[in-house]
């Protein structure tokens, strides 16, 4: 009986969880954390169950209130949704586990209750986006997660977090407004909000200027959300000044959510027929993404602050994924979609490491990391694995997405993109290797105490899990690929 209601439970569970956390926290602040972790664990199980259902029976449609679409709201869980859902929930779970100790120094203790509530609300929004099949519903959930994200970014003790949060809020809201305008335009010409219905109704209207305007608003809005260079201005501050657990969360979950929304709208609403065949604007999109890949990396090289460097690296990686999507053949798409998983694993791990370093030795500047490997061996090992994964060296997952993206670009005959993808490897290597060199190949200054700084298990475990994931999914890449192939076929099949 439960199995047919899985999609809605994926949204309701964290919501109920958020309320429960609030109540529990009201009773006793200490209860928040276990409840939140428990909720997310169940949620993770749920998402796996959804994935299993999807793999077994194909796309799940769930009519809310038993109203058939397009009149009611429909939840649609296809391979892509299930895949993204599992990733996002898993990362949320890990960053929640990670949060326990990491927020200790970064957030006022009395705020922990609201923090965990917010955390779960963010998950609500994210899950809502992944499962919904209604474009307006998507907007609503987008806003839930966004508001949660703005607040969480600003929730720390760090003053700059406030500025970052405000900046993020303005940009994010404009982005959401653009999406809303886009939805309005689509509604004007079709009269429907259901994605499948839209995809069905749009083709005859492809020449309409309104559709074009809608598309522009969507793509610019989504570009802001995904921080596609040069609309990334909010991202570095938000990522680097947020509490560490939140850096992990937004760099993995929120960014992936934006990408998911982009893919959904581009391919499930507008479909390949419009963006590639009718109006080859995706080509331009891919160029922007390519520039983002390079620009993000180059700016990352300039950074001296680890978290900020990682943030710019994210800008680059977003471009990476978008490039895969922009090339829009099945191989490149596979690479892009695969990189959603990979980047979540890698960047999650990296931000966790950055957080752990801040937590333990209070260092942010890369120049101060001299001899860090001796003091924090496991943390640095995790960083190492994640870094080479980001560079795209085997045997780590980064290699796999690079493989597919390059192959896809070659297949599309886009040699420039091939160059970009491969050049990004080098740029990544430059800035990641600098950190590794400082950590491993420089002696610590005399004044820094030579004690092995133990990172709490609740922080170490998630990052090691992610680091292990980086390696494991290299060898077990067929598992996500099985899902991705179906997802990509779905997305491109609409052509």
């Amino acid at each position, binding site marked *: 009986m439960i199995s047919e209601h899985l999609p809605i439970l994926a949204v309701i569970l964290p919501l109920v969880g958020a309320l429960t956390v609030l109540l529990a926290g009201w009773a006793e602040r200490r209860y928040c954390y276990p409840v939140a972790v428990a909720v997310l664990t169940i949620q993770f199980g749920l998402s796996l169950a959804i994935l299993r259902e999807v793999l077994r029976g194909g796309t799940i449609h769930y009519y809310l209130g038993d109203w058939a679409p397009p009149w009611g709201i429909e939840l649609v869980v296809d391979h892509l949704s299930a895949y993204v859902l599992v990733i996002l929930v898993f990362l949320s779970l890990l960053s929640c586990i990670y949060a326990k100790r990491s927020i200790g120094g970064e957030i006022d203790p009395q705020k922990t209750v609201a923090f965990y509530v917010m955390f779960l609300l963010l998950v609500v929004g994210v899950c809502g986006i992944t499962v919904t099949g209604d474009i307006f519903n998507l907007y609503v959930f987008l806003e839930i997660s966004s508001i949660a994200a703005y607040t969480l970014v600003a929730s720390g003790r760090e003053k700059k977090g406030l500025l970052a949060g405000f900046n993020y809020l303005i940009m994010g809201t404009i982005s959401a407004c653009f999406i809303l305008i886009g939805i309005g335009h689509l509604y004007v010409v079709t009269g429907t909000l259901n994605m499948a219905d839209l995809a069905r109704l749009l083709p005859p209207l492809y020449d309409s200027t309104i559709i074009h305007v809608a598309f522009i608003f969507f793509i610019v809005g989504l570009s802001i959300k995904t921080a596609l260079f040069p609309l990334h201005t909010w991202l570095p501050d938000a990522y680097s000044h947020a509490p560490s657990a939140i850096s992990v969360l937004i760099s993995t979950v929120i960014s992936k959510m934006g990408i998911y929304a982009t893919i959904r709208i581009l391919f499930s609403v507008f479909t390949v027929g419009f963006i590639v065949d009718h*109006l080859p604007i995706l080509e331009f999109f891919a160029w922007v993404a390519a520039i983002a890949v390079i620009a993000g990396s180059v700016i990352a090289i300039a950074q001296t602050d680890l978290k900020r460097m990682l943030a710019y690296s994210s800008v680059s990686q977003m471009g990476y994924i978008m490039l895969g999507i922009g090339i829009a053949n099945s191989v490149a798409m596979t690479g892009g979609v695969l990189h959603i998983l990979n980047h979540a694993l890698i960047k999650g791990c990296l931000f966790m490491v950055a957080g752990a370093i801040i937590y333990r030795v209070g260092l942010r500047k890369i120049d101060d990391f001299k001899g860090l490997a001796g003091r924090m061996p496991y943390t640095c090992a995790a960083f190492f694995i994640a870094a080479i994964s980001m560079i795209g060296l085997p045997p780590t997952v980064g290699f796999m997405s690079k493989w597919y993206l390059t192959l896809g670009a070659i297949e599309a005959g886009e040699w420039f993109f091939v160059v970009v993808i491969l050049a990004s490897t080098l740029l990544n290597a430059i800035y990641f290797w600098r950190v590794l060199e400082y950590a491993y190949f420089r002696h610590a200054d005399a004044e820094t105490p030579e004690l092995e700084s133990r990172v709490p298990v609740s922080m170490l475990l998630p990052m090691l899990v992610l680091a292990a994931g980086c390696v494991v999914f290299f060898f077990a890449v067929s598992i996500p690929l099985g899902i991705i192939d179906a997802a990509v076929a779905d997305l491109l099949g609409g052509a």
Partner: protein
Amino acid sequence: MIEIPPALIPIVGALLVPLLSGKVRKAYLLAVSVATLAATLVLTPGSTFTVPFLGYDLALLHVDSLSLIVGYIFAFIGVIAIVYGMREERTGHHIAALIQIGSGLGIVFAGDFLSLYIFWEALAVTSVALIWYGGREDSRGAGMRYILLHIFGGGCLLGGIALQVAATGSMAVGEVAPGISSILLLIGIGVNAAFIPLHVWLPDAYPRSSVAGGVILCVFTTKAAIYLLARTFPGAEAVAYMGGLMVIYGVSLALLQNDVRKLLSYHIVSQVGYMVVGIGIGTALGVSGGIAHLFNHILYKGLLFMCMGAVIYTTGRHNLTELGGLARRMPVTMIACVIAAASISGIPGFNGYISKGMVIDAAASMQMTGLGLLLTLGAVGTLLSFVKLTYYVFFKKNNEIEAREAPLPMLIAMVATAFCCILFGVYPGLLFAILPIPVDYHPFTAGHLIETGGIVVVAAVILLLGWNLFKPKEKSVPDLMEVYRLGGRGLLGFSTTAVNRVSDALAAARRSVIARLGWFVQDPVMATTILAGTALLPVARAALPRARAASLEEDLMRTRDEYPGNPARMWGTGYGLLLVTLFLIIYFAVLFLIG
């Protein structure tokens, strides 16, 4: 009888030398060399010994009459050289000597090109060691020049062999058909056989070798080459003329030398010339003459080197101008030297007379008059120079020198060799019996004797007339080696400079690229602004009013000075939204363009 390649005995034997010392070592060395001689003597034509190697069957033992005669003399002189060098204490010297002997024998008995080549190179390497053991101030350079030239020659030989093998599929040592392969082989052999102008290593290196080393060196390298020449190029006319040239060239330069061993070295060139002529002529008499001369030459030239070695060993001097008056002090050496000088000059009754006559006869019998004349001239020159040598070393008055007779092992070696010189001079039949091609040659005919007499007379006349001309001068005579050195240095200098230039330029380019990139990545945003500003400045100057442009320029300059700014600067919402609107416009434009 067990027939094993004699080459292996000294080579393997050499490995044990470092483990022994003192008397035991001496006895051991002698035993090894004698065993080598014995192993050579028991060989009979047709003996084989093959080793599978690289998929070929290496014939380490390919015995016929030609290889036997050369083998005998090689093995014999090996024993002599070892005896001569008994006083040598340096382990490496003995090792090198033994391997040198072994390699020489290896070449002689090699039935295929590959093993021949390997021994050939081994010969070169050990030669360098012997040269370096000379310890003279320029030994190092001489050794280097020696090995460089030989490696070049060896390379050519290898190339020739390879081409031969690639063309015919056969590795067997034999006559070579004309072609690139033959040219390469000839160059390769020519280096070792001291063909002009490839001879330069010889007078360069031999005088600088160790005393005992010189004896060994003067034997194997050139003679092995002659042996190979006999195998591969019998009857090549060009080769014969090359021999003639060598005879004259060697003699002429020998006459001008001051260093005793250098003088001898040029004589090697000259004497080898006779052999080359003989082989080049290619008739039975010619080849036999050449080989016979090889046999004899080893004896007397070895003896000469021994004598001069003894002189150098006891006096420590090696220049004619510094020597003299040793006849009383070193009588045995003196006698041996005179015997050897007589031999090389072709005085009847000494062995040189026999074989030199054969070669000249062979030339004459082929109506190669010019060649014959050259050879005769060479004989005159040889006689002259050895009169000069013996006089200036032993008979000229010089009371400064305190010297005693050479040590016993040296004397034994010298006496034994001198005995052989006379033996084969008096009983040439002994030699004829082992010649590869039986010849019917009668050395002591009137014609030959008269010819020799003529040579002696001419020489005497020249001596009487121009004694002062032959006075040794301290100034050394330049040879082609100077040209080579200059050329080599120039080439090397040029190429290294060129390489350095290029690599420096590449490095500079790389550094500048890295520096530029390094500048850019410090603050990419600001850098882009500066670059764009710089690029657009001319446009602004042209388009905007002067004051405005100037202020813009000032801004740009200020920005440049401030660089790098703060790469971690925060970007406000205003900036972000501006970009957003710009992006909207761009998308509109794109859509407009493609829609």
